């Protein structure tokens, strides 16, 4: 289950959902808000989601990971709202019998969420300006 989360992500609670007697490996990924992007000092970030479709698409990604790799669990949450530097924006946790499947599935989930799930990020810079990431006015070639 992939959830859009308006309050802080409870990492321990999600990690607990990955526990299984048969699991010999667990990998997790946390995406944090950093203070610099493309040379600009960032003050804070705002995330917005199309919740119904984001949860549907995210849940499909978790199901694809379960089909492609021999894993025991896969959970993920993404924050929305105004986040400060250092806050956790996304958590992905995967457990499996052996480590390779957990590493690969975790990577696949994170990359696919960034690529496909309708979530948007607005950066607030220390200069006072803001920008919706990936939404530049003109598309660069290529």
């Amino acid at each position, binding site marked *: 289950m992939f959830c859009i989360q308006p309050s802080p992500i409870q990492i321990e609670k999600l990690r607990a959902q990955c526990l299984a007697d048969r699991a010999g490996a667990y990998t997790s990924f946390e995406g944090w808000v950093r203070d610099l992007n493309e040379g600009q000092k960032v003050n804070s970030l705002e995330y917005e989601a*199309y919740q*119904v*479709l984001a949860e*549907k698409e995210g849940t499909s990604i978790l199901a694809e990971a379960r089909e492609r790799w021999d894993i025991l669990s896969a959970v993920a949450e993404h924050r929305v709202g105004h986040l400060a530097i250092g806050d956790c924006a996304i958590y992905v946790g995967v457990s499996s019998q052996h480590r390779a499947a957990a590493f690969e599935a975790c990577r696949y989930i994170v990359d696919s969420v960034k690529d496909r799930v309708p*979530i*948007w990020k607005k950066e607030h810079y220390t200069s006072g300006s803001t920008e919706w*990431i*990936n939404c530049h*006015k003109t*598309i660069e070639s290529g």
Partner: protein
Amino acid sequence: MQLTLKYFAILREQRGLSEEVIETELATAAEVYRELKDTHGFSLNSNQLRIAVNDQFVASDTILKSGDTLVFIPPVAGG
């Protein structure tokens, strides 16, 4: 026919609202976006968008029907 439009992120800000109901005879999402872009000056080009109808991703040339909820999805940036 009547369509409900929902706006997110940069489109929500440029339109100045999150949702509206419109009356149109245009057949596809691509045509509706072209008209809205002209009216409201949206900065994104149609080739930067994905389309959702009734909470499902669809092709931009899908034929719309009355009562559909249409969402233009700007380039995503989760994570």
